[in-house]
C-alpha cells in the first residue's frame, strides 16, 4: 500500500514546508525516506516527530555523554520516566518536564497541564504518583505581569495536583530579570511501584489491538495550529488555542483506570498521548518494539465533527492514553475504563508489515517504512563558542564593587537578603499546594533541605529536591552544571538521604546560536562530571530550547531533580535549629568567593564574577561525612549554604520555622582575614550548618572523612537574636526582624497582585515549551 493525498489536502509547497518548521534539507530527507512526495498528513507527522521537542535533534549527541548506569537503575533514559530500585521489591519512577511556553501564554492552564503531563509519564510506568515538585523561574516581582504569572502558575499547579490528590512537597523558585519574558515552569513527579509491576511503552505482538483511552480527541493544541486553520477544516475559527486545557478530575480517573489496567494483565504497553499526541505516542511505541502499526483515524473517539486525520494525529487534547492490549482482551480493557466512566476504542493494531501506517477508513493517508520516521530524524552538531559578554562578566573583579553606605551595618544587608524573593520563605506559594495528602509526608515544603516521603510498610523514606542556579551557569556553564547537581545532592544528604539518581530539565535558548549551544554543551558536561563523581546517574529528563524573546535568552537553567534514599525514617533530619544550647558546627570551609552571588545581584544589581568553585571530590566527602554523622545520631539539624551564603543559612536555621524561632551566638573570627561580605554572603560551595549536642563527635567524623569542620557557635533562645562575631566586629540581628523580612516578603509582594491588570504582550512570548 502507499499513501495518497486526501481530497482537500493543501498542495505541499516550500512555504507550507517552512511553516511546518522543516528545513529544505529535512524535507529532502523525508522524500528520500519515502521515495515519493509526502502527503499533507505525512508532512504533519514528520513536522511533529522531528520537532526539537520530540526529536532532541540538537541535544541528543551531547546528552549521550551523561552517565546513566548504576546497579539499582531499572530504567534509564528513553522511556516515559526513569525507574530506580529502592529495595524490598519496590521501585521509584520519576521524571521532570517543562511547560514553559504554555505557561508564558496562559499561566494557569499552562502550568496545570504541565502537572498533568508529568503525572501521566509516571503512572504509565505502573507507578502510583506519591509526590510532585516544581522548579519555577520568574522575572522581577516588581512587574505586574510577573506577579500575574506567579499567581496563575501557582494556582494552576495547585488546582491540578490538589484535585488529583498527589502531594506537592518541594521545589525551588527563583526570581531574576533574565526570566522576565520567559518564565520556566518545570514539574517533577515521583511514583512508587512494585518492581514486578514495571511496564514499558513498547508495542509488541502482531495482532494486538491499539486502544485509545481516556478523554476524547478535540482540536485543541494542534501543532502548528496557528497557521492557515481555514485550510484544515470547515470551521471559521480564526485561531485555535495553542494551549491545552486541563481536567484534573479526568486525570484522576485516568490514573486509577491506568493502574488498574496495568495490574490486570490485559495490556502489554501504555503511553501518554502528550506532545504531538497520537503521532508521537504511536510512533514511539512502535519504534521501541521495532514493530509495524496501523491506525484508523475514523475509529478515534473525537469530541468534534469533521476532524481530519492530520488534526486527530496532531491534537494535544489532554488526559488521553494509548494502550496496546493483548488480542482478545479488548472487552476486559473496556470494562475497566467503563467503571471509571472513560472511553476506550480500538483504533489500530500491531502488524507484521514493517510500516507505520495511518488510514482514514480504507484510505491510506500516511505510510512510513519501518520505524524510520523516528530513527531517521536528523541530528545536528551546532557550532559552539562562548559569548564574549559572559567571559567579560566572569573576569570582573567583584571585590571592587563598592559597598552601599547602609552596608556599614551588615545586619541591614542580611535583612535585605532575607527578603529577596529568591531567598525569602515560599510559604505564600506552598500553602496553596496540598502537601499532606496520602499521609506519607515526613518533611513537607520548607521543613528540611529536601522533601521527605516515607515508604509505607518499610522503615525507608525518599528525599526529593529540585535545584539549579542559572546565574552560575550563565557565568560559567561547566561549573554551573556541576554545582546544580552538587547542590541537589547536598540538599538531599542534609535530610539524611544517600543521593541516588537524577532527572533533569534543560532550559536553554536557541541552540542555533553558538553562544547558547556552548552553554548547553558545557552545562551538560558539568552535570556529567558531577553525576559521575557523586554516583547519581541520569535516568531521564527533558530538553526545552528556544526559551528566548526579543530581549534575549533566559539564564541557561539545567534544573536537576534529585532522588535520595533514607534507610531508616529515624534518620530524617530537618534544617532548622532544634534546641537552645546545642552547638553549631560548620562542615566545609569559608572562602573569599563572592562571584555570582545573590548578594551582588540583589544588593548591587551586579551579575558578575566567577561563580563559586565546585570541588566534586570535596562534595562527595562532605556528603559521606554528613550521612555518617546523621546515621550515628549526632546531628539535630542540617542546612546547606546556598543563595545568600553563611549568614543567610544561619538566619534561616533560626527563623525558617516560624512557629519555633531560635537565636544563635556565632564566632567567625577564624576567618577574619577574608573579606567580610564574602565570609557572610559569599556562596562558597560544599558547606553545611549542623546543630548538635555532640560537637566533638561531629568534628571527628568530619576529620575522618577529610572534611574541614569547626564549632562556630551555640544555638540560643529567639530573644538572644542572631549574633555573629568576626574579630572586633559584632553583628547583631533581632530574630523578629529577620523573621518578618523572611516570612513577610513574598506575601507583601503578592498583595500588590490583586490590583494588577493582566497584560498580554505577544512580543514578550517566544520559544517552545
Amino acid at each position, binding site marked *: 500500500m502507499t499513501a495518497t493525498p486526501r481530497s482537500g489536502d493543501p498542495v505541499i509547497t516550500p512555504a507550507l514546508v517552512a511553516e511546518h518548521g522543516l528545513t529544505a534539507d529535512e524535507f529532502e530527507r523525508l522524500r528520500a525516506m519515502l521515495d515519493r512526495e509526502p502527503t499533507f498528513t505525512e508532512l504533519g507527522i514528520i513536522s511533529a516527530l522531528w520537532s526539537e521537542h520530540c526529536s532532541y535533534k540538537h541535544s541528543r549527541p551531547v546528552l549521550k555523554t551523561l552517565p546513566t548506569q548504576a546497579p539499582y537503575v531499572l530504567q534509564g533514559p528513553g522511556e516515559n520516566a526513569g525507574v530506580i530500585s529502592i529495595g524490598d521489591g519496590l521501585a521509584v519512577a520519576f521524571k521532570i518536564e517543562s511547560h514553559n511556553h504554555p505557561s508564558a501564554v496562559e499561566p494557569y492552564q499552562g502550568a496545570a497541564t504541565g502537572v498533568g503531563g508529568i503525572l501521566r509519564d509516571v503512572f504509565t510506568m505502573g507507578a502510583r504518583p506519591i509526590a510532585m515538585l516544581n522548579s519555577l523561574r520568574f522575572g522581577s516581582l516588581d512587574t505586574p505581569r510577573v506577579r500575574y504569572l506567579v499567581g496563575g502558575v501557582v494556582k494552576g499547579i495547585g488546582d491540578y495536583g*490538589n484535585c488529583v*490528590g498527589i502531594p506537592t512537597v518541594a521545589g525551588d523558585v527563583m526570581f531574576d530579570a533574565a526570566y522576565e519574558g520567559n518564565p520556566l515552569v518545570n514539574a517533577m513527579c515521583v511514583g512508587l511501584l512494585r518492581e514486578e509491576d514495571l511496564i514499558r511503552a513498547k508495542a509488541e505482538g502482531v495482532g494486538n489491538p491499539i486502544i485509545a483511552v481516556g478523554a476524547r480527541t478535540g482540536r485543541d493544541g494542534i501543532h502548528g495550529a496557528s497557521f492557515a486553520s481555514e485550510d484544515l477544516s470547515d470551521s471559521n475559527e480564526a485561531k485555535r488555542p495553542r494551549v491545552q486545557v486541563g481536567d*484534573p478530575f479526568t486525570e*484522576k*480517573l485516568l490514573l486509577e483506570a491506568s493502574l488498574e489496567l496495568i495490574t490486570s494483565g490485559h495490556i502489554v504497553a501504555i503511553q501518554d498521548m502528550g506532545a504531538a499526541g497520537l503521532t508521537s505516542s504511536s510512533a514511539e511505541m512502535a519504534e521501541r518494539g521495532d514493530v509495524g502499526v496501523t491506525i484508523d483515524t475514523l475509529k478515534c473517539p473525537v469530541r468534534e465533527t469533521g476532524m481530519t486525520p492530520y488534526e486527530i494525529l496532531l491534537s494535544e487534547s489532554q488526559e488521553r492514553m494509548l494502550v496496546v492490549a493483548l488480542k482478545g482482551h479488548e472487552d476486559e480493557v473496556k470494562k475497566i475504563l467503563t467503571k471509571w466512566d472513560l472511553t476506550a476504542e480500538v483504533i489500530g493494531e500491531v502488524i507484521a508489515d514493517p510500516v507505520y501506517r495511518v488510514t482514514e477508513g480504507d484510505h491510506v493517508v500516511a505510510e512510513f517504512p519501518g520505524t524510520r520516521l523516528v530513527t531517521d530524524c536528523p541530528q545536528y552538531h551546532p557550532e559552539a563558542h562562548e559569548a564574549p559578554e559572559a567571559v567579560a562578566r566572569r573576569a570582573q573583579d567583584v571585590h571592587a564593587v563598592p559597598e552601599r553606605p547602609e552596608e556599614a551595618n551588615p545586619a541591614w544587608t542580611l535583612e535585605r537578603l532575607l527578603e529577596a524573593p529568591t531567598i525569602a520563605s515560599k510559604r505564600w506559594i506552598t500553602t496553596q499546594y*496540598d502537601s*499532606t495528602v496520602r*499521609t*506519607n509526608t515526613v518533611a513537607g515544603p520548607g521543613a528540611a533541605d529536601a522533601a521527605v516521603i516515607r515508604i509505607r510498610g518499610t522503615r525507608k523514606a525518599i528525599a526529593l529536591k529540585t535545584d539549579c542556579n542559572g546565574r552560575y551557569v550563565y557565568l560559567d556553564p561547566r561549573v554551573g552544571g556541576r554545582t546544580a547537581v552538587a547542590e541537589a545532592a547536598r540538599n538531599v544528604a542534609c535530610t539524611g538521604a544517600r543521593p541516588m539518581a537524577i532527572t533533569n530539565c534543560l532550559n536553554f535558548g536557541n541552540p542555533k546560536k553558538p553562544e547558547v549551544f556552548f552553554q548547553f554543551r558545557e552545562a551538560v558536561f558539568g552535570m556529567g562530571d558531577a553525576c559521575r563523581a557523586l554516583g547519581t546517574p541520569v535516568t531521564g529528563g527533558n530538553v526545552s530550547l528556544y526559551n528566548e524573546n526579543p530581549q534575549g535568552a533566559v539564564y541557561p537553567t539545567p534544573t536537576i531533580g534529585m532522588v535520595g534514599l533514607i534507610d531508616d525514617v529515624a534518620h530524617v533530619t530537618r534544617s532548622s535549629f532544634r534546641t537552645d544550647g546545642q552547638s553549631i558546627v560548620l562542615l566545609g570551609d569559608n572562602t573569599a568567593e563572592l562571584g555570582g552571588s545573590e548578594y551582588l545581584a540583589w544588593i548591587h544589581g551586579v551579575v558578575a564574577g566567577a561563580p563559586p568553585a565546585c570541588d566534586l571530590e570535596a562534595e562527595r566527602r562532605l556528603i559521606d561525612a554528613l550521612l555518617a554523622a546523621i546515621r550515628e545520631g549526632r546531628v539535630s539539624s542540617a542546612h546547606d549554604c546556598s543563595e545568600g551564603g553563611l549568614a543567610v543559612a544561619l538566619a534561616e536555621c533560626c527563623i525558617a520555622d516560624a512557629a519555633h524561632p531560635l537565636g544563635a551566638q556565632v564566632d567567625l573570627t577564624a576567618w577574619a582575614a577574608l573579606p567580610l561580605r564574602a565570609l557572610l554572603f559569599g556562596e562558597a560551595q560544599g558547606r553545611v550548618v549542623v546543630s548538635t549536642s555532640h560537637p566533638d563527635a561531629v568534628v571527628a567524623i568530619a576529620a575522618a572523612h577529610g572534611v574541614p569542620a569547626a564549632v562556630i557557635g551555640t544555638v540560643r533562645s529567639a530573644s538572644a537574636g542572631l549574633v555573629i562575631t568576626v574579630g572586633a566586629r559584632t553583628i547583631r540581628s533581632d530574630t523578629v526582624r529577620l523573621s518578618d523580612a523572611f516570612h513577610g516578603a513574598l506575601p507583601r509582594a503578592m498583595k500588590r497582585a490583586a490590583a494588577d491588570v493582566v497584560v498580554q504582550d505577544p512580543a514578550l512570548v517566544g520559544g517552545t515549551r
Partner: protein
Amino acid sequence: MKFGIVSFPGSNCDDDAVFAATETLGQPAVKLWHKSHDLEGSDVLILPGGFSYGDYLRAGAIARFSPIMQEVAAHAQRGGPVIGICNGFQIACEAGLLPGALMRNAGLQFLSMPVTIRVENIASCWTSLCTEGQCLTMPIAHGEGRYTVDAATLERVEGEGLVVFRYVDASGEATDAANVNGSLDNIAGVRNAAGNVVGLMPHPERALDSLLGSADGRVLFESVLAAVNA
C-alpha cells in the same frame, strides 16, 4: 467493627481513611463504590476528602446524588456513625446530613497548613473520648472550607451545641487570625442533633502519626470505636 469508606470517582483521601481504620485502629475496612447501594455490613462510614466529581460546579453538589448516598443517609438515620472529612463534610452538608454549607475560603486561595482546633462538644460519637476545650493540631487542605449558615440555623447550631470544633490560636483562643478560611464563628466542624454524624474541614486521618507532625487525630477514631463497642 467494620469501617466503610465511600469512594467517589474523585475521592483522593479514601486510602488515607482506610489506613486510619486498619493501621491505626486495627479494624477491618472496605471501600464502598459510589455507584453501589451496598454498605457491605459497615458499622461506621467515612465520607473522605477529595474532589468527588471534580467539584467544578460546587464541592459535593453532584456527589449527593450518588446511589451510595441514599444508603449513607439511611445509615445515619438509623443512628450509625458517619464522619465527613473535608470534601466529605461538604458532601454531608449538600446532602442535608449536617446543617450549613462550605464556601470559598475568605482569601480565595487553597490553604494547606496545620491548624489548631478546639473541641467544643463531646456529645458526639466522634468526640466522646475528648475533653471539652481540648486543642488538636491537624492539617487542613481545602479551597472551599468557609463554613456558613443562615442566622436562624446558626442560633440553633450554637444553642444546641452542634458546633464540635472551632479554629483557635496556639493558646486556644478563637481569634480572627486563627480563623484561616473566614468561617462563621470560627466553626471548623459540626454535628447533627443525634451526635452520630460529624463533619469537619481539617483532616484527622492525616494526624495519626507524630512522624508526620501530629497524632492528635487519633482521638476521633478511638472515640467512634469506643462509642460503637459501648
